[in-house]
């Protein structure tokens, strides 16, 4: 009828601008990335493009640089996830407990989050420099000067520590929100049952925070997978490719070397990893809610 038709028109008028932009800047690029990943498309000579099937996928996993980048990324993930995840949880628990200066603590630990990665990286180049402030502090504790980002063995962990420093406040705020959402009556009931502080933490806080923990840890993992700006600003991927990451490889292959076909293949591999993580995150956090609902309905 008339009314339905006018609603459809109105809907498309409102949704239209977004739809056009989504098509140009999300749907098409996604399809093109998928298509290019099966070709040897070279942007400086597009005429010579061939369909190469799965060749690119074999090629990148044999490619020394990509393998290195992949392992570096995993290594970065392994360092930063426990550091940032447990760090943010610990901070949140302490700040939630404290009665004074709560606001100051929240601001202090959140401050690096609002500084950009490029700014933080630029700052930490100075902090990490051989004659920098960090080495000066270490010297006061009798520790000899460290090369940090100038050595192949220390560069990646150094960047990981810096990244955790930058990001820890973000997850801390999320955990604080979660802690405030726990019903205080639970703790009062536990007090009546003579629970020790450790028991309260183990039997109330942790189970209540569990879905949030899963969410936070996977968020950090996804963020770590996407790491690029820090090595770009600080080390250029070096020394000797020790801080070269997957996204760095995609970026260089695609926009510096113009090998769009190969870059697309890497992007697909990268996207698959990130999307698997996101799906796990969604299922893990939603699963809990559905179980809760099940329990409630069974009780009824």
């Amino acid at each position: 009828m008339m009314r339905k038709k006018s609603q459809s028109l109105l809907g498309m008028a409102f949704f239209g601008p977004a739809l056009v932009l989504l098509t140009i800047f999300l749907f098409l690029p996604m399809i093109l990335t998928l298509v290019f990943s099966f070709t040897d498309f070279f942007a400086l000579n597009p005429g010579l493009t061939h369909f190469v099937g799965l060749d690119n996928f074999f090629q990148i996993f044999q490619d020394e640089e990509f393998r290195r980048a992949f392992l570096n990324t995993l290594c970065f993930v392994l360092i930063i996830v426990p550091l940032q995840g447990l760090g943010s949880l610990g901070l949140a628990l302490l700040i939630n407990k404290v009665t004074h200066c709560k606001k100051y603590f929240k601001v202090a630990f959140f401050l690096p989050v609002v500084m950009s990665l490029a700014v933080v990286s630029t700052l930490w180049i100075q902090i990490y420099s051989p004659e920098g402030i960090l080495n000066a502090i270490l010297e006061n504790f009798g520790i000899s000067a460290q090369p940090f980002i100038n050595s192949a063995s220390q560069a990646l962990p150094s960047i990981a520590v810096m990244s955790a420093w930058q990001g820890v406040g973000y997850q801390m705020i999320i955990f604080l929100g979660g802690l405030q959402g726990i019903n205080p009556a639970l703790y009062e009931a536990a007090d009546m049952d003579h629970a020790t502080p450790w028991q309260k933490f183990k039997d109330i806080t942790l189970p209540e925070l569990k879905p949030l923990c899963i969410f936070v840890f996977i968020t950090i993992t996804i963020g770590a997978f996407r790491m690029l700006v820090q090595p770009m600003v600080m080390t250029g991927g070096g020394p000797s490719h020790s801080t070269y990451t997957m996204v760095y490889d995609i970026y260089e292959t695609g926009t510096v070397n113009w090998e769009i076909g190969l870059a697309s293949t890497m992007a697909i591999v990268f996207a698959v990893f990130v999307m698997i993580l996101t799906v796990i995150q969604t299922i893990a956090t939603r699963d809990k809610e559905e179980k809760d609902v099940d329990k409630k309905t069974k009780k009824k």
Partner: protein
Amino acid sequence: MLTKKQKRNNWILVIVLIAASLFFLFPVLWMLANSFKQDAAITRDMNSIRAFVPPALKGNFFDNYVKILTDTSFVRYMLNTLFYAAVLIILGVIVNGLAGYALAKIKFPFRERWLMIIMLLMIVPMETIITIHFLFIAKVGLLNTVIGYVLPMIVNPFNIFLFRQVFVSLPDDVYEAAQLDHCSPIKYFFTMVLPMSKSVVATVSVFTFLNVWNDYLWPSLVFTSGDLLTAQIGLNAITSNDNTTMGQKLAVITMITIPVIIIYSLFSKQIVEGVVSTGSKEG
């Protein structure tokens, strides 16, 4: 009520946390203090507590800052970025807001399907398609233009979803009352929906600003010439120049952080809300 022992423990905790926060913030404190010093003083102070103390407030106190502001195009870069942020906030709120409103309140074909697609798009990492964006912008000759920079950043599935979640709970009867008051749908969106949803508009605006201000990869691809650089790319250009002293570098990164700190202190409620909402989003 706290017992005596709990009170004492609490004070110990406060002191421990203050110490921890000072240690945590040492890079920032060092940056601030030394951004006012000449390089010789920075090196001299490095091994003492003076490394964290700003110099005496004398005539040359702001030298590093003055030098950056007068000798480089940093002010211009900052103004560029502010302009881009303003444009993207306005266009972003309109485009994503209209789409969010359509998904929330207007019955058009495949609405539920579109909502699903928007939610799926939220999980696609931008890094995957940034190469194609770059290729596209280069092909249509928009490299080094404001349009080329802004266009791919307007639409944002996450913001569409955020708007939709807020708009869906707006009361329908207000829309009906407005209809009887001869208010057209588009007028309703701008004069009713947006003012009634100030909080989400503020959240989206603040996050758009932070995103534009802090973004590095996309502007570094689009902008190569000096005039249009964003502050972050300008920062890189200034700090990688050999003539820039360390004190001046620290002054630049301090200045580039100031607008963000101002935004943060003005809108901390929206920021915390936005951060917490990502942690408690459902499905």
